[in-house]
Every structure is written in C-alpha cells, then in structure tokens.
C-alpha cells in the first residue's frame, strides 16, 4: 500500500462499488456486458451515475460472456462482464469455459452474497470460485475492500498476458459497501506468474538447421499467431521460405486465405491438400497451435516422417499430444522476429521445394471443398460463397457450431486476423449472435455477419432484443436445413441413418420472429435469390437483417477424417 489509510481525510474514502467503477475507468474499459441482480446493485447504481464506462444489457448471462469474447477476439482488448451471484454466475459458465478453451482474454465480475452469509446456502448463493476453478486461467474472491483495486489490476494483467484466458473476480455485496481510498496500481508483479519469456537463441539455430535439411516442410499455424499479433511476421516467414501454410480453425486469417501458398484449413474437415501435406511432410513448423484431437486424428499415424518444431507460449501445450523434436516456449511474435532476423543476417539458404509444391498441387486438383449448385435447392456452401463474394472477404464473420461453421471455415477466405470469430475448443452452440454483438461494439461501422443454423441460433435467440436496444446492424445468415446438421451427418455415417432427435421439428417462422423484435426478416428458398438477398441485406445499413436460407437437408461437410483415422484416410464425398 502506497499510502496510509489513516492519514487520509474522510472525503478521500469511496465505497467498494465506487472503487470498482473507478478501477474499470483506470483500466481503460470502455464497454462491459452484463445483467443486474441483487448482489451487484450497488455497482449498478455507480455505473448509472457515470458516463465513461458503457454498460450493455444482454438478455442472458451466456450472451454477456460470448459478447465479451467477440469484443476481445476482434479487437485484442480484454472483454469485461458483470453478472450477479447464483444464477448470474452459473449462466455465465459456458462462456467462461469457451474463453478458457480458446484463450480469450476476458474478466468476469460476479456478485456474491454478503461475506457473513457465505456457506449458509443463502439466496442466490453458489460457490462461484469453486465452480469456475477448472475453466478459468485464474479466479479471485475479494474479501476486503482494501484488496479491490489490486485484485482488479491483477485480473486484467493475468487475463491478457502470456496465454490469454478468462479471469473471474467474485465480489461479495458487503465489500461494495465498505469504504476505502482509491489507488489503482500502475503496475503489477507476481512472483508466481511471469509471462515474459526470453527467446533462446540456441533454439533459433536449431530451427534454422532443421529448415536447411527439409525437403517437404509445412507451416501449421493456429490461434496463437492471432493472439500474439504475429500475422505479419508469419506471412513474412512464409514468403521468405516459400513454405506451404495451413491454418487451424482458430488460426484462420492469420495468413491470407487467398494466397497461393495457403493450403487451406487442416484437420477433421480440412482440405485434402492440407491433410496430405501434414501426413507426408518431413518438417512441421507448428506455431501457436496445440495439436488438438480434431487436428491430429489418429495419433500414432500422425505425420510419421516429420521432424516437429513446436513454437508456443504455453509449455503445457508442448508434447502434450504429439512429441516435439524442437520445442521453443515463448511469445510467437518475438520468436518469429528472432527467426527472421537470423535468417536475414546469416543469409540462410532455404532449400528449393519445387517438387514438394508439385505434389501439393496434385492434391489440390481434388478440389475437396467443391460442391454442385443446381437450380432448385440452395446448397449451404453456395450461400457462404456468395457471402464471401458480396462482402469481398472484408466482413467480420461470427458463427455458431456445426456444419455451417465448417463451411465458413472452408469457403470464406479470411485475409486478415481477428475477422473470424467462432467457438473452436468448446464448440458452444449459441455463440454466434452474442459474439457478433461484441464484435460490433468493438468495430462500430464495420460489417458484422453471423452465419448460423436454425438449431444454434435458437440457443441465444433472445439477444435479438439486445440488438434492437443498441441498434446493432448485424446480418444473420441462417443456413436452415431443418436438422442439427452435424449431428445428422454423424448419424448418417456412423448410426445407419437413425436420426435420433436431430430433426428440428416445430421451428418458428424466423421472419416473423425477427420482425417481432423490430428487425428485418427475409426467407430465401431459390438459388437465384441468394446473392441479391445478401446485397439487399447489406444495403440496409442501419438494420439487423435475418436471412433464413432454406437449404439442402442432406448436404454433408467433406472432406472428413473420422475419429480414430489418420490424415491420409479422408472421406472425400
């Protein structure tokens, strides 16, 4: 403590709720997503009295967290959430777990019952710190108003440093009444947490030696490149080396999607060329990726002949699923900068890989993401393709989870990072619409599209109300095949077509539903109307437009690597 509290006048004292809001201001927080309730009423009263921190009222706490995630993912800033105790906290868990899986920097403030009631099964009491412990980077309960500013400072520091992640701060109601002076720490240091890792030069040498010896290299880049803001460095490295680049679902946009060195997404629904190249490569340079099971497929048949270099900020990601031959822990941006500097300084001779490119170009000829659009029924892929064309690849696109998500990942070519916002690790349906709200708040004036399905959209449909309240002109592209498409696909492949509970019976009229919320709804059933409807939606600049595309019920996502199969065992059609 820099000052002695006793030396201060009464007028320097603030309530915990006042200190809380001052801390948000001091932390530079512009927007918070939340929902009021008993335990946080003192805080809401203080928010009401000021203008610096803008509070956005969602309609369900899950929506608040996904919105904060969309805000964070599209801007790099920390997303902030404020919810009440009990159900406010439990409703936010899906979003917190999602942020944990996808390394999204958010701070979630939860109200808590008064400290004298904790453990008494009080009204709206849950053990928030206990419940969230397994799905947060860290969490705190503030038990003394003196700790408020310091804890909030730490929360923001932890959330958005190192490998980013969610931090929960639980605040009992009486703490927001107690008085103390306000002193927001300028810096924070923790003996148990130091995310600043020095790049080991010897490891850079090892990477260069491996590059010199490679004939069939591939760069496998994930979301860590985006979190580290290292797209430029990655692109420069790829251009200097002329190596092929593949992206994970979370990495899309970290390398230009329409570049000829880009071999598309890899993994379960990745391209033929990406997966074959991963299987046959002799050098894999994994950057900010974690060898997730949807990426690797069968582990013992994963890239049998490859030397594996793994660059990641999280030591526990290295050799967790796949043993790395050369592991380098640290910030991807710093490491790539060192690598580039060394390559230039030593004029490293990068091997000619023309014959490798010939092999890759042969695989490319399969055109594994292709589909045939007829005149009658709309193919879902066609809608994504048209969206890409009409928006010129410049939109922010969020998605929910399932087939539509894969089709966007395959067909919308993201050329910039932080444009593609989806739920990868947790795979949380309901993510698309609220995350689009967060993206719109972080990028006012930009075009934000939410590609979804009739099943996913209903999981957070209530947020249409939030969109009305704040005038968010999101364009919702609903690929409506009357099925939980990905569930249906698995049931077709692996359960002999027994479509248990995957048919979406009793769907609402989405046009009327949208209109009842004060937005514009359209229903499109013919391929010839797809492009014009998207153009029309985009022309309604100030309006949220919901386009309900009635699509082919039987379409599957190809290619597919079934669980337990290797990269070279894809189902192509």
């Amino acid at each position, binding site marked *: 403590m820099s000052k002695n509290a006793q030396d201060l006048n009464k007028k320097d004292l603030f309530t915990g709720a006042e200190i809380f809001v001052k801390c948000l201001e001091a932390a530079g927080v512009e927007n918070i997503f939340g929902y009021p309730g008993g335990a946080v009423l003192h805080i809401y009263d203080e928010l009401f009295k000021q203008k610096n921190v803008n509070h956005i009222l969602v309609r369900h706490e899950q929506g608040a967290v996904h919105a904060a995630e969309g805000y964070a993912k599209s801007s790099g800033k920390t997303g902030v959430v404020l919810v009440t105790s009990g159900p406010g906290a439990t409703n936010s868990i899906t979003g917190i777990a999602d942020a944990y899986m996808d390394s999204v920097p958010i701070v979630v403030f939860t109200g808590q019952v008064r400290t004298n009631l904790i453990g008494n099964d009080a009204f709206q009491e849950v053990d928030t710190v206990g419940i969230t*412990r397994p799905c947060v980077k*860290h969490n705190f*309960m503030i038990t003394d108003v003196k700790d408020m500013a310091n804890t909030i400072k730490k929360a923001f520091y*932890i959330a958005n440093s190192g490998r980013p992640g969610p931090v929960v701060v639980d605040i009992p109601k009486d703490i927001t009444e107690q008085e103390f002076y306000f002193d927001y720490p300028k810096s924070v240091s923790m003996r148990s*947490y130091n995310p600043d890792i020095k790049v080991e030069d010897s490891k850079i040498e090892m990477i260069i030696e491996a590059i010199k010896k490679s004939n069939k290299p591939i760069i496998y880049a994930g979301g860590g490149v985006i979190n580290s803001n290292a797209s430029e460095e990655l692109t420069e490295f790829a251009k200097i080396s002329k190596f092929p680049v593949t992206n994970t679902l979370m990495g899309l946009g970290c390398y230009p999607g329409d570049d000829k060195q880009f071999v598309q997404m890899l993994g379960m629904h990745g391209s033929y060329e990406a997966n074959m190249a991963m299987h046959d490569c002799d050098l894999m340079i994994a950057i900010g990726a974690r060898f997730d099971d949807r990426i690797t497929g069968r582990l013992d048949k994963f890239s049998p002949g490859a030397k594996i270099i793994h660059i990641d900020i*999280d*030591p526990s990601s290295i*050799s967790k699923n796949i043993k790395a031959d050369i592991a380098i822990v640290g910030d991807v941006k710093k490491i790539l900068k060192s690598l580039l500097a060394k390559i230039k300084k030593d004029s490293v001779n990068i091997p000619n890989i023309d014959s490798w490119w010939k092999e890759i170009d042969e695989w490319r000829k399969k055109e594994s993401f292709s589909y045939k659009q007829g005149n009658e029924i709309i193919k879902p892929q066609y809608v994504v393709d048209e969206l890409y064309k009409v928006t010129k690849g410049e939109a922010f696109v969020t998605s929910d989870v399932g087939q539509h998500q894969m089709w966007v990942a395959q067909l919308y070519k993201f050329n910039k990072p932080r444009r593609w916002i989806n739920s990868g690790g947790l795979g949380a349906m309901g993510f698309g619409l609220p995350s689009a709200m967060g993206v719109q708040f972080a990028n006012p004036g930009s075009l934000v599209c939410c590609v979804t399905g009739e099943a996913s959209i209903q999981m957070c449909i209530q947020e249409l109300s939030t969109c009305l309240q704040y005038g968010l002109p999101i364009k919702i592209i609903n690929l409506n095949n009357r099925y939980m498409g990905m569930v249906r696909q698995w049931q077709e492949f692996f359960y002999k077509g027994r479509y248990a509970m995957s048919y979406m019976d009793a769907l609402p009229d989405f046009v009327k539903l949208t209109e009842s919320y004060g937005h514009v709804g359209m229903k499109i059933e013919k391929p010839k109307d797809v492009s014009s409807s998207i153009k029309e939606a985009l022309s309604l600049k100030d309006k949220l437009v919901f386009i309900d595309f009635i699509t082919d019920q039987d379409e599957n996502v190809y290619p597919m690597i079934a669980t337990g199969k290797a990269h070279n065992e894809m189902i192509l059609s």
Partner: protein
Amino acid sequence: MRHIISVLLENESGALSRVANLFSARNYNIESLSVAPSEDSSSSRMTIVTSGNDDVIEQIIKQLDKLIDVISVTDITSEDHLEREIVLISLKSEDFGQSKLKGNDNIKIHELDNNNVILELVDSPNNINKILDEFEDLAFSVVRSGAVGINKTKQGE
C-alpha cells in the same frame, strides 16, 4: 514410475483445491499429498507423490507450473533427497507384544489404558509399508501423513 514432486505455492485460500482439482480434472494419479506453510508464512510447500510414465509426469509438472498460485515445481525423485512419512498405528497391546516389531528402537510406543497401544514411527514410505505388512492378519487401524520430501543439497527446495 513413482515420482515425488515438491511444489511451492502462494498460501492463498483455494490454492490446495486448485492442485487437487488439477489431478482429478486431468485424470492424474495421486498417491499422497501433504501441505503446510513453508519457512515463509506467505507460501506453502506441498509434497505430492504420484505415478505415471515420463510423458505424464512432464505434463503434471507443466500443468502445476501453469497454475497462477504456483511459485515453483521440482521433481525431486531423481535428485539426492530425503523422504519421510509419519505413521500412527493403533492395535491391541497383546498383538504388538507378539509381533517382530517389539524391540524396534525406531518405534515410539504410546501405551493406553484400554489394552491398546499406539505406535508412532517416522520412516521412509517404503519401510512403513514393510512394517504394516507385519500386521497383515491383525486388527489395527492406521493413519499416515503422506510423504514429505526435501532436497539434500539445495537450501529450501
């Protein structure tokens, strides 16, 4: 293989459950865990006995280190270290009298009024297992502290 891991962590509420939670959430084995304040009251030292192949142990150490409250993690298994555990054994005086352990100078005996004795022994977990084998066929109850370990060369590790 059996490993003994020493963890220095912040003496904060919830720190213990973060560690315990990690082991259950990630399906790691845990043979014993003991924790108490270290030489500095703001931190605690925990000794965890676990088992697993090299890859699993590597992950356990990395995952422990990743916890924000954890200051340092050391696998002292392969280092020159001292490992001790305390055991309390309650059994009938008569049974103890007939056992091979009578006369073992390392065992401290607490005679009770009710014809029972409590044996107190500090030894390596391995030796304690051997001693407990002696009572295999008898009625007895046992309380073990779990192992604690310390590196012999480095101060405070």
